[in-house]
Structures are given as structure tokens and as C-alpha cells.
């Protein structure tokens, strides 16, 4: 089973990301589906809600998600290339504006050295580009001991924490 990082540990990942036509049936098991599929199959999905998650592309923002976003067990945000930084804003919006509390996963090809920033904007799960060893990568979650700005991990900016 493939490994991912979740909540600062390496775990086996059981979620599949099959390519689906909007008209195809949901496969068995835990699946992550595209936004298009998600929005087109709300009824079917609601029956098996706890085993269906969503993958957002960098052009897809949370306002386009139909149904109760908070109930989605996993939302993955795709980084088709690691340097495409739109996912950082999408993650933050999901957490801060839409109150999403489930698993927020960075997929595609994020790299080890983005882990700090990704977790700051709200991601708690990471499927790194293949050539990274997730065990070793864990170390990069804690590159900084503190930070200046407000973000998901630290809702109080440094200047408000200084006496």
C-alpha cells in the first residue's frame, strides 16, 4: 500500500484516485473523485459519504463545491507541478473561510521542502512526489520554531503575542 504523511506520521494510504467519467458508477472502497464528478453525483455520493472524498484542481476553489463541504472526509488539493502555488490559497480558504476540519491532503507533486508552508496553510496530509522518502521528509515539518504571520496553524500573529 502506498505511504503518505498524515498528522506528522507515515501511514498506509487506502484512498484511490480512479479516473471516472461523470456517468460512471462509484467504485468500491475509499475513493477521491473530481469536482465535476462530485457535483454531478451528489445523490449517489450522499449514500456512501464516508468513503468518498474530493480532489480539487488549482483552478477549483471551495465556492464551487456543492453539498455540505464540512462533511467530506478527505479533500485533496492537486499540485500538478510543485511550484504551482494556487493550492496554498485553496487550502487556507477551505480551513479559514469554509470551516473545513476533515483531512486536507496535498497531492500531485508537492516536495518535502514545502511541508512547512503547506502545513501552515492547513494541510495535514501529504502525498509527496515519488522520489521522496516520507519517513525522512517528516523532519521538514518543523523547519521553523515560530512564524510572523497569521495562518491556519497559528491564528495569532507574532506581533500580538509579543508583550
Amino acid at each position, binding site marked *: 500500500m502506498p505511504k503518505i504523511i498524515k498528522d506528522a506520521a507515515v501511514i498506509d494510504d487506502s484512498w484511490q484516485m480512479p479516473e471516472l467519467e461523470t456517468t460512471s458508477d462509484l467504485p468500491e472502497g475509499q475513493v477521491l473523485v473530481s469536482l465535476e464528478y462530485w457535483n454531478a453525483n451528489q445523490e449517489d455520493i450522499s449514500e456512501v459519504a464516508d468513503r468518498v472524498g474530493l480532489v480539487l484542481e*488549482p483552478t477549483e*476553489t471551495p465556492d464551487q463545491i456543492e453539498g455540505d463541504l464540512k462533511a467530506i472526509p478527505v479533500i485533496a488539493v492537486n499540485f500538478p507541478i*510543485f*511550484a*504551482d*502555488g*494556487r493550492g*496554498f*490559497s*485553496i487550502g*487556507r480558504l477551505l480551513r479559514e*473561510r469554509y470551516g473545513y476540519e476533515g483531512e486536507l491532503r496535498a497531492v500531485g507533486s508537492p*516536495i*518535502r*521542502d*514545502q511541508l*512547512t*508552508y*503547506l502545513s*501552515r*496553510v492547513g494541510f495535514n496530509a501529504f502525498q509527496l*512526489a515519488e*522520489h521522496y522518502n516520507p519517513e525522512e521528509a517528516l523532519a521538514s515539518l518543523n*523547519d*521553523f*520554531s*515560530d*512564524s*510572523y*504571520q*497569521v*495562518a491556519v496553524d497559528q*491564528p*495569532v*500573529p*507574532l*506581533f*500580538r503575542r*509579543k508583550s
Partner: protein
Amino acid sequence: MYIYDKIDQQIIEDRVTQFRGQTERYLNGEIREEEFLPLRLQNGLYIQRLAPMLRICIPYGMLSSKQLRALAEVTRKYDKGYAHFTTRQNIQLNWPALENVPDILADLADVEMHAVQTSGNCIRNFTTDQFAGVAKDESIDPRPYCEIMRQWATFHPEFAFLPRKFKIAVCGSETDRAAVRFHDIGLNLIQNEQGETGFQVLVGGGLGRTPVIGSVIREFIPEKDILTYLDAILRVYNLNGDRNNKYKARIKILVRALGPEEFAKRVEAEWQHIKDGPATLTEEEIERAKGFFTEPNYQSFDADQAEQALSDQASQDKAFGRWLERNITEHRVPGYRSVTLSLKPIGVPPGDVTSSQLDSIADLADEFSFGEARSTHEQNIVLADVETARLYELWQKLKPLGFATPTLGTLLDMICCPGGDFCSLANAKSIPIAEAIQRKFDDLDYVYDLGELDLNISGCMNACGHHHIGDIGILGVDKKGEEFYQVQLGGCQSNNAQLAKVLGPAFNRDEVPDVIEKILSTFVEKRVDGESFNETYHRLGHDHFKEVVYAKDN
């Protein structure tokens, strides 16, 4: 000057450790080339034509003497004993070895310096007026706000992988010395009718391949809201900027595509969600930042006596008088002046300094200006707080050091990028052009007679030498593998910002000084009543100059 506290220091040391690890993993082949690229860029490291280049940040141009000495030491220890001041108030090393960069950054961190976000597609150094805090025409000192925003931008987790680089300039004076109209975001610090402090916000200005003058998207944003408003602008840009074509990725293209009104609307809509959130500045924080930029211990003098003595010295010593006229700026405190040390002596690439010169600047700063110096975007150094009565003494010390070239603001104070001698993106060399022009126009009386004149040179259309906003701009172009130079006229960087227009077909290197001479002679012949170059140019029209320059000799 801002002084780090324990947390600031820890964060910057964390960064050094992080980059040390990244460099090791890269050298071990554990990080791919294309993945290491943004990591090293965001630590200031380019791979240049001849060697890596390290761009060190000088936040809004402020340097202490201690930092200057550390820079001198770094250039000696890790480089060839010199460095280069850039047009964004930073300083570059041209020959560091990749494997030494973590050590260099560690040495810099010891004096509260770094190379964070000096390149790459992220928020870059904030630039401002080199006379901040001392300028006579200043209404609000921009430096405390620059520092607040510097902290906000440093390791901002959401905006480290923007579509493209992002530059912000801040100005608090009547005359714009920060070129706010030519930045991704330009901020004018102002007071509204109620006497509240805030910013006029411009977006979408910039030079480079598609030069654009920025548009005002908000007339007034209160100071407390500046960080949330910046977050809103950056978020709209991050989500909507072009990710496919790097030539269309700057915010100016997005602003143009949407139109400034629509862009402003989107920012406003985004801002409504985050406004009044925890990133809203507190009065205590603004006061805390201001506390680092209080007045130095100015003495009071008999100003009249000092002025009298100064004019006596100037009339007795002509050379001193010249320098006084060109390289000295009025100060808001009586009995003080700001002095610009010219880094443009003939035969030296504009903005270059040796390590011993850096040490000398540190000594001079200690002796004459409360231990501080500033870098300018015209690639010179300012000692901001010099006693009028000690100007003569300072001048005598500057001469043997090569800092007293009395040409500030003139043709010979040209801005010039490193160009083809160092930069791998260059189409043509720029330093030899600067030198050829300096040699051709070595008659200072002639140069003074021309008055204020900006001549700016870039080695390619990335425009690091700001060629679009010079009275005369020179741009290196490539024609079938050969270096040519396009000449542009009529640019202006300040309050009535204008972009220069291309004169016509490009010239080869040897022709450039003569072309400049033709342009200048036309100006001298045709100007009336003390007109500036820009005024004569606009009165006569572009075509007039074109005809003169391209006329067949007979």
C-alpha cells in the same frame, strides 16, 4: 534601525539550518535540479554565467556599520573582495561557491542579515526613499511600516510560490524617490482629511518586457488594515495570475486583463472576508515599530554660522563647492545634511564596491552619521545625518576613497545592471557601455551644464537597469548572436511617471557614445530658459531627435 529580538534571531537561524540541509541534500542528489531552483532562489542564490551569484537583502536600504563590516568580511572570505549594489537597494556577491552559501548566510545571520526572498517568485525586499526620516518633503517616515510589512512577507506560507516575482515600494514624501508607480504594489503613505494615517495603493506597475505605470486601486487604506489588504491583493493574484506563460505572469498583466476597476473590486470582495481579522495591526505594534526609527541624538548648532562657514569653504575650494552642489541633500533638522557617496567613479562598474571600501563606509558612518548608512536604488550610498560643519572634513576623507565623484543626478551618475559580464540572461554587456559614456563625457563643466539627467542601462529586457524610466535609456539586444543597443528617450521615474520611447533601429557598441552625443548636442542647442532634458524632449518631440540621430552624415 530595527533590532532583532530573540524570536527574530531564532527564525533567521532556523532558515540558515533549513537551507544548509537543503544544500546538502541537493549536493547528494536527493533534490532535483528543478526543485532546488526555487529553494536556492528564495535564499538569494542564482546560478550565473560564470559562477553562482548571491543577492543579500538590505531591508529598505538600511545598514548599520556593523553590518557593513560583516559584508566586507564576507566578500573577503568567500568572494573576490568586492560586491555590487543593485537597483533595489540590495547587494550582490558575484563569486560565491554554492557549498559555502550556508556558511555565508550563517555569518550574515550573526549581524541580523539574510538573503531571504531576494529572488524567486515570492514577495521581494521592500524598497523606499533613501532619505526616509530625514527628507524635508517627507510627511510620514515609511521605515516602521516597511519593517512591519517585511515581517509579514518573511516566510509568508501562502505566497511563496506566486506566478512570478513580486515587488513592493513605499514612499512617504512629496517627491517620489521610490518609483512606486513602477512596482507590483506601490504604497504612498498619506494622511486623510480626518488626519488618519494610511496608504494610497497602486498595483500593476512594473518595468521588464511590458513596462506599465501602476493604477490606483484604493485612495486610502487605514494603516491598521494594511496587512489584511495586502493579503487580499496577493490572494487574488495568487489564484488568478497566469501560470502558463512566464511573460504574462506578473500582476500587471492580470490587472490589465481585468481592468483596474474589476481588479480592485475583487480585492475588495476578498478583503471583506479578512478585514478586522487578527492580522489587523494594533496601535502597540505600530508604536513598537516606530520605536526603532526614532531620531538619533541630534545636537543643536548655530545653523547660521555653519551655513556661513560652508559657503566660505565652497567659494575657497571650487571642487568642494561642486561636490556640495551635487552630492548633498537638505535635511529637515537645521545644522545637518545628507551626503551621497557616489559609487560611480569612471572605470568602475556602477554600484561596485571593494571590501575595503565597505569597511571605509562603516568607519565613515560611525564617525559622521550615527553608525548608519543607506543604499539607494541609483546604486549609491547615503550618510543621512552629517553635521553641516563637518562636511568639508568628510569630503576630504571621501576623495581618496573614490566616493567624492561630484556627479550625482547627472549623466555620469548612470544606473547600470551587471549585464553580459555577469548575468546569464543578458543579451549584451552593459558595463562597457557605461564606461565608454563616462570616458566620452569626462568634461564636468559640460556634464553640469546638462543638468539633472538620468541615463539608465539594461543588458536585456528584464530591465534591471530601469532603462524605461531614464531620460535616456539603453537596452542591450541580440541581433543574430551579435550585441546591439537600442536607445530610448523620454522616460521619467518620479511623480509624473513616463515610459521612454524607442528611438529607432539599434546600434552597435562603438556607435553608442556618438549617438548619445548627438542627442545631448541637440538638447544643448535647442533648449530654452533652463529647460530640463525631459522638457526639451517633449517640446521638440520624439521625431526631432530621431531625425537628428539617424540623419545621413554628409
